[in-house]
């Protein structure tokens, strides 16, 4: 009994009691908000959207100004870049001819093989352009906000790419804006772990899973590569499209090193990301085709 009354005497100190309650409440909030949430509550939606609405007035002009200074500084590089772009355009024009021929042939073959409408539309991924409106000031939670939200058909876990390659995954979706988590935050240990199945441009039969980022090396970690896999250093790693969420062929990066994995059964490759995560202005959200399979949360709603 003496011990219990002593406990009460400690709690009679109101400040300590408040502190304890605050800590418990915050631990609960953090734990609750950690996992996947398809719908946010209205206060979150209201605050998130209205603040981002103001942020977009600042971010874009700042980007233009920074770009202007950048242009003046890199005037000399522009000539060389122009040369390279001309080469690329020439190659593009050549590829375009081949592409048209192959696409027509592909259409014809699909008709001949009597593909169902659903199968035909399976790879009709839509690339929706989005503008970045703000960047998080927390290095351990480096999300950025884009000006597309659930009213534009954005859902969590959609892939976000730039012209260089995969940048991140849509994380939390507000009605008009959403946060994007860069792939540098992939972590197989966390509760909301995401994994991207990947293959190589040079070796289509290789397979691995990208689910970690090694910040000390600055490289993505590609696990579960079979010992006999032909993946080699210098290969360009692309998404394999096997999960159905991320389309086939998004560039992720290049293999820098391949070694035996932690358990010795499979191999691990270190992949240098192709995309630049800094000073993003425009990104593309990859929207998978709507195949009539509504997400589970919407089916539950009447």
């Amino acid at each position, binding site marked *: 009994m003496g011990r219990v009354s002593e406990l009460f005497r400690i709690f009679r100190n109101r400040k300590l009691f408040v502190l304890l309650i*605050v800590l418990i409440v*915050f631990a609960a*909030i*953090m*734990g609750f*908000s*950690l996992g996947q949430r398809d719908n*946010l509550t209205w*206060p*979150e939606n209201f*605050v*998130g959207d209205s*603040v*981002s609405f*103001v*942020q977009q007035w*600042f*971010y874009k002009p*700042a*980007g233009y*100004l*920074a770009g202007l200074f950048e242009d003046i500084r890199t005037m000399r590089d522009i000539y060389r870049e122009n040369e390279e772009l001309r080469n690329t355009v020439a190659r593009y024009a050549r590829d375009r001819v081949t592409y048209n021929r192959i696409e027509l042939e592909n259409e014809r073959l699909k008709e001949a093989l009597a593909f169902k409408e659903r199968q035909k539309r399976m790879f009709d991924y839509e690339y929706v352009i989005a503008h970045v*409106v*703000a*960047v*998080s*000031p*927390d*290095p*351990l*939670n*480096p*999300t950025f*906000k884009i000006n597309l939200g659930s009213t534009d058909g954005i859902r969590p876990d959609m892939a976000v790419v730039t012209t260089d390659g995969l940048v991140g995954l849509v*994380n*939390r979706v507000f009605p008009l804006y959403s*946060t994007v*988590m860069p792939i*540098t*935050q992939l*972590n197989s*240990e*966390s*509760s*909301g772990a995401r994994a991207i199945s990947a293959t190589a441009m040079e070796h289509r039969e290789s397979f691995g899973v990208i689910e970690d980022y090694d*910040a*000390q090396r600055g490289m993505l970690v590609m696990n579960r590569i079979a010992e006999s896999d032909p993946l080699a250093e210098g290969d360009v790693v692309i998404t394999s499209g096997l999960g159905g969420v991320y389309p086939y062929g998004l560039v992720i990066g290049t293999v820098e090193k391949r070694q035996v994995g932690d358990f010795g059964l499979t191999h691990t490759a270190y992949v240098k990301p192709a995309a*630049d*995560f*800094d*000073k993003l202005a425009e990104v593309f959200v990859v929207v998978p085709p709507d195949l009539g399979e509504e997400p589970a949360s919407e089916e539950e709603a009447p």
Partner: protein
Amino acid sequence: MNTKWVIPLTVLLFMLETTIVPWLIPESLHGRIAPHFVFVAALYAGMYAGRHPAFFIGFIFGLLQDVVFYGHMLGVHTLLMGSIAYLTGLLLEGKRAPMLAALAVVALGCFLYDAAAYGIYRVFRVTHEPFEFVLMHSIAPSLFLQTGFALAAYVPARRLLEAKVKKDVDEEE
């Protein structure tokens, strides 16, 4: 200058650190330097205005940052900015700390803030980098930016925040 400017100015700082400052940080330091200007403002409020305004600024703007950049989880910045700003107020309220002491407090507060944020993320298994790496990679470089900002903002912050205390004292007399 009047105390009614404190909230609009802090909103402006929040906008600045989330939109314009990222464009000014050189590419080689991307992901290493992070501005915590609003937090510095909350610390100044703790030193020169009192623990309650400091807690209010830290809590509200921490919540704002948590919700707007909702990534891993909610509540980290709300808890840390609110509690560290309150603690600063509790220890230094009315002490009229001189400039060097104020800068030292800002540096210490920012270190505490970043280290505690890392601790929370580590506990919830959001990050798995060792502390030594995070310390050298992002916490230490960010400290320089924060201290630099604190130096630049010292005079206006003190003038703006101490005005309230002085006025209260005058009214009491």
